[in-house]
Structures are given as structure tokens and as C-alpha cells.
């Protein structure tokens, strides 16, 4: 037996008292770790999505909200396709790609799907209207529909290379290089669920389309769509030369910020927003949750601290004779207070570890289930949670430890 084992045995003697403080500390740490882990994973996902999407700008019809757009574009409003020409002719700095799209509901194999008409990159080469402009000599063959951004630190101000013409580049460029009028590209998830393969024929909106390829998984709603030539979709949907949205790919974030204003000026009855603005809401919510988790943590730590202090004071009062006897046997006041503090630190550490385990379980369950994020551990939260739990336990036990150290050893001479 030694000093530490004596403390441990005393804790085990009345576990109920210890458990109350431990539980509250554990809850506080669990709340912090769970929320922080989910928030940080969500932020990582958002950041990764932003990186994937690049410095994109969305041009939406005026009055269409971002939620409408992400609810499968079926907002009923449209933009003239002619806006695409206007943007190309305006030759804005840093505009790399233009992707006008028209999404219409359809049916395939008995399931409701969305067909998105997209204008392939090669269409921009063909536009006779543009031949009158300096675009050809300014490198249209390089597929730049805007002026080059000098000193760009972004994606590329890219030149179209062989890898960019492959459909697998869709995930990063959001552009299909070439697409025949009667061809279609099927999203990865839709192809899997319907058993569709390349070369197969499918019927959409009463018309036959040849499956030219299966798109790689992008993690977006495009995975469950069919992409076809914009003009073909306009024809079968009888919509006329309209689009739901024009995606503008800027070469970098710096350009995107300037372009928004310029495009809003160029197209006054449309609305240009950056992807970062779209995700800003999510980032704001994340930050709010982050702060909230710290507030909850602080409140629970205060309650836990008060509970530990109360339990320790009661413990010292209950053990007056025992502590007096220890002093009679030769324990110094410092030893006696160390016993109390050692007990408190055990409560803090155990509470922290239990809270950590609870928090991680909650995060790994709740993250994917409720927020669609694969959770990873927030190391910050783990470290802060454990350290604060220990400090709170020690601080709360300091007054009772001092009281214990100042006990009168003569108490041991009192009758039972």
C-alpha cells in the first residue's frame, strides 16, 4: 500500500459521491468534443467542397434563392441563353469557363430524375457570333472565354489539355468538353441504380439518347442526373433558348470576388453569387455551433466544479477524525491536502476521459446520421476538454484541501 493507493481505496469506498462530480465533468467534455468534432469535420468538408468547386460564380435568375437552386434547380425561373454570349463577349479577366445549364424534370425507368442540359466546351469554338471578336487570336483554342488573369495564383488560367477533354474532368471543371446532340452522360449513382452502361440507349422526354459515358462520382446532385446537350434538352422540353443557371469558373478567388460585381453590372436582371457566399451560411452556422459548444462546456464545468467542491467539503467533514489520526501518525498538513487534491485530479481526469469517449461516440454517430459528415476527431477539443476538466476539479477542491490541511489533529482524541 502507498499514498496513492490509499486515495484510490477511499474513492472506491463511496463511489456515489465521486460519480456526481465526475458525471457533470464528463457531460461538459462530451458536449465540447462532440460538437467540435462535428463542426470541424463539417468545416473540412465545406473547405474541400470549395476547393473542388473552385472559384465558381453562379448566375441565377433574379428572385431565385440559393436554397431553390440546390433543391434541384426546379425553381421555374430562367435566364436567356444569350447572356452566355454577353459574358463571353465582355471578356472579363480570369473567366476560364462558362457552363450554362437547363435542368428539367423527367422520368427514367419509372423513376423521377432531373435532366440537365449543358453546353459543351466545343460549342464555344463554334459560335460564329464570336468570330467577329478578337477571341480567336486571343486564344479561344485555349478555351479561355475571358482575358488571362496576370499573376494568377489560382487553378490555372488554364489551357485545355488532353486530360481536360476527358469526361472524368467534369468533377473538377464542371464542363463537358464535347457532347453530341443525341448523346447523354449519366451520373454515377443513377447509372448504378438503373444498371445503365456506356453505349446503352435510354429514352428521356420521349426521345432516344445514346449513353456516351458514365460520369465519375462528384458527391453532388449531378451523380443522380442525366446530362445532355443544352440545345437538345431545350428542344425536347420545348422551353426555348433559356437556361436555369450559368456557372462561371474563375481562375482564382481573387478574380471571383471582382467578377461578381462586374457580372451583376453586366446582367442587371440576374444575380451573381460566389460559391464562398453560398457556403458562408454554413460556415457561420458552424462558428455559432462552435461558440455554443464552448458556452455549454463552460456552464457544465462551473456546475461540475461546484458539485466537486461540495462533495469534497462534505468528504473532509466526514473524515475529520481519520485525517486527524493521519496527522497524529505523522502525516504533514501538506500530505493531507495532497490527498484531497489527488482525489480531485482523479475525478477530473476520469471525467475527462469518460467525456471524451462519450463525445467521440456521439460525434461519430451523429455526424453522418444528422449532418451527412464523416466525423474526425477535433484534437483541439480533446486537449482543451481534458485540461480544463483537470483544472476545474483541482480548483474546486483547493478550498476543501486547505481546510483539511488546517484540521486540528487533536480531533483524533475525541470520543466516537
Amino acid at each position, binding site marked *: 500500500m502507498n499514498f496513492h493507493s490509499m486515495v484510490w*481505496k477511499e474513492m472506491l469506498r463511496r463511489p456515489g459521491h465521486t460519480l456526481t462530480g465526475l458525471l457533470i465533468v464528463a457531460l461538459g467534455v462530451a458536449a465540447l468534443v462532440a460538437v467540435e468534432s462535428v463542426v470541424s469535420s463539417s468545416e473540412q468538408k465545406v473547405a474541400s467542397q470549395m476547393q473542388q468547386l473552385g472559384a465558381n460564380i453562379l448566375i441565377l435568375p433574379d428572385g431565385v434563392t440559393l436554397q431553390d437552386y440546390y433543391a434541384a434547380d426546379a425553381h421555374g425561373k430562367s435566364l436567356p441563353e444569350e447572356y452566355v454570349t454577353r459574358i463571353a463577349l465582355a471578356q472579363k479577366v480570369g473567366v476560364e469557363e462558362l457552363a450554362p445549364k437547363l435542368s428539367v424534370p423527367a422520368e427514367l425507368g419509372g423513376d423521377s430524375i432531373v435532366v440537365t442540359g449543358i453546353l459543351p466546351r466545343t460549342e464555344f469554338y463554334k459560335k460564329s457570333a464570336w468570330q467577329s471578336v478578337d477571341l480567336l487570336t486571343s486564344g479561344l483554342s485555349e478555351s479561355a472565354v475571358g482575358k488571362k488573369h496576370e499573376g494568377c495564383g489560382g487553378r490555372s488560367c488554364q489551357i485545355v489539355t488532353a486530360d481536360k477533354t476527358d469526361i472524368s474532368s467534369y468533377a473538377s471543371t464542371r464542363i463537358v468538353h464535347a457532347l453530341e446532340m443525341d448523346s447523354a452522360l449519366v451520373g454515377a449513382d443513377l447509372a448504378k441504380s438503373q444498371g445503365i452502361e456506356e453505349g446503352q440507349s435510354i429514352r428521356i422526354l420521349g426521345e432516344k439518347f445514346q449513353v456516351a459515358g458514365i460520369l465519375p462520382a462528384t458527391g453532388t446532385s449531378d451523380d443522380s442526373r442525366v446530362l445532355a446537350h443544352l440545345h437538345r434538352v431545350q428542344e425536347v422540353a420545348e422551353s426555348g433558348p433559356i437556361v436555369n443557371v450559368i456557372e462561371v469558373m474563375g481562375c482564382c478567388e481573387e478574380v471571383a470576388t471582382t467578377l461578381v460585381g462586374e457580372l451583376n453590372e453586366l446582367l442587371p436582371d440576374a444575380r451573381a453569387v460566389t460559391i464562398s457566399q453560398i457556403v458562408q451560411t454554413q460556415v457561420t452556422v458552424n462558428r455559432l455551433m462552435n461558440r455554443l459548444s464552448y458556452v455549454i462546456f463552460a456552464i457544465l464545468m462551473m456546475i461540475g466544479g461546484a458539485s466537486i467542491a461540495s462533495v469534497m467539503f462534505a468528504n473532509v467533514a466526514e473524515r475529520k477524525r*481519520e485525517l486527524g489520526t493521519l496527522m497524529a501518525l505523522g502525516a*504533514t498538513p501538506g500530505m493531507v491536502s495532497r490527498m484531497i487534491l489527488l482525489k480531485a485530479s482523479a475525478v477530473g481526469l476520469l471525467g475527462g476521459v469518460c467525456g471524451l469517449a462519450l463525445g467521440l461516440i456521439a460525434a461519430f454517430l451523429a455526424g453522418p446520421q444528422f449532418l451527412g459528415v464523416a466525423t474526425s476527431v477535433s484534437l483541439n477539443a480533446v486537449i482543451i476538454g481534458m485540461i480544463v476538466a483537470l483544472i476545474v476539479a483541482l480548483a474546486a477542491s483547493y478550498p476543501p484541501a486547505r481546510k483539511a490541511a488546517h484540521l486540528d489533529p487533536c480531533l*483524533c482524541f475525541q470520543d466516537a
Partner: protein
Amino acid sequence: MLQIESICRDYTRGRSVIHALHPTSIEVGQGEFIAIVGPSGSGKSTLLSMIGGMLSPTSGRVILDGKSLYEINVKQRSRLRNEQIGFLFQSFNLVPYLSAVENVQLPMALYGGDCVNQEKEARHLLERFGLGERLEHKPAELSAGQQQRVAMARTLAMSPNLILADEPTGNLDPDSRDLVLRTMHELCDEGRTIILVTHDATVSSSAHRIFHITEGHTTEATPDRDRDAA
């Protein structure tokens, strides 16, 4: 071995001063068995506490083996108490969540050391007191007599030269009381000094010297004078 030089203890309550113990001087030699008798509240426990280095006297000195107890710091005094003074209490004062052997080990474990040897020594002491079958029992699982024997084993754990006992037989049956007294005398024969506080005349009469305390005043009596008084 022990010199108590004019120690007294006063308490101040507002403007009044309470003299718990008037100036007392006692000289105790090695191997002596001293009994301190007196009514409740007379100052017996106060005197014992001061001798044991647990209560600073208002004035005077306690010198144990040449060391003035209250002229060293708290840590040194605690260490000295651990190594040279053993205590025996009326209520045994065993730690309820430790087994018999762990209770005996307690004084040895306070300042670290070899746990294995300490446990061996504790077991040996308990076997000496006939508790070899009760080593792992908690105090609640022992009778009063057995608990006091554990307490005695604990008192001897550090082989102290001075043993201070506060009514050690107060809660015991006659047989257990006799056992405790016999043990006390054996310890005296081994050269240890025992100072015992008691109400029990049977216990005090077996002491080498008897001190009476009444209202804080200490006087020495002899065993013969006590018998005559009875």
C-alpha cells in the same frame, strides 16, 4: 527521555482567558509507564496532545530525546512524530476502508519506502497480536478487542520509543483490557516509555507513576498513595 518544562495551554474567548492547562513540568525516563488520571475536561487530552507534538503550548517546552518539539517546523515535527511517537486511541481510529494489514502499514507508508517489506512487517506485527487470520479484514469485520489489537500493532509499526495512549481500554471488555495492559507492560520491559490517560483505577494502579489533573492543575501521586486513597 522526555522533559516537559512548564508547559501550559490557554484559550482566549473574547476578553476572557481559559486556562486549559496550568504550567506543568514532568520528567519521564526510558521504560517508564506513566498514567494520567482526572475527570472529563480536566486537561488530560490537552496535555497528551502537547506531548505528542500536535498542540503548541502557550508557553513551555517539550523535549523528546534532546529535541524541542516546538522549536522545529511542522514538517520536521510530523516526521519526528511518525518515527518516535506511537498513538493509541480510545476509539481505535482505524481507517475504515483499509484492511487490518494496511492500517498497520499506514505509518510506514506515509513517507514512502519498500512496500513489500512494510507489508511483511505489518503481517508480523498482526501475527504477534494473534490476528494472523484477520489480515485482510476491514475494521468493521473485527470485534472491539481485535480492532484495538490492530491499533496496537499500528502503534508499534515504526518502533517508537514513546507511546501515548488515550483511554485505550475505554471501549473494551475486561479480558481485552487485561490483554492491552499486559502488552503495555511488555513494551515497557522492552524499553519503551508509555504515557497513558485513563479514568480506570485498575489501569492506572498498574503504572509506575500517576499524575492527577484537576481543572488544569497537575500533581504527581504514587501508586501507594492511590491505593490508600481508595
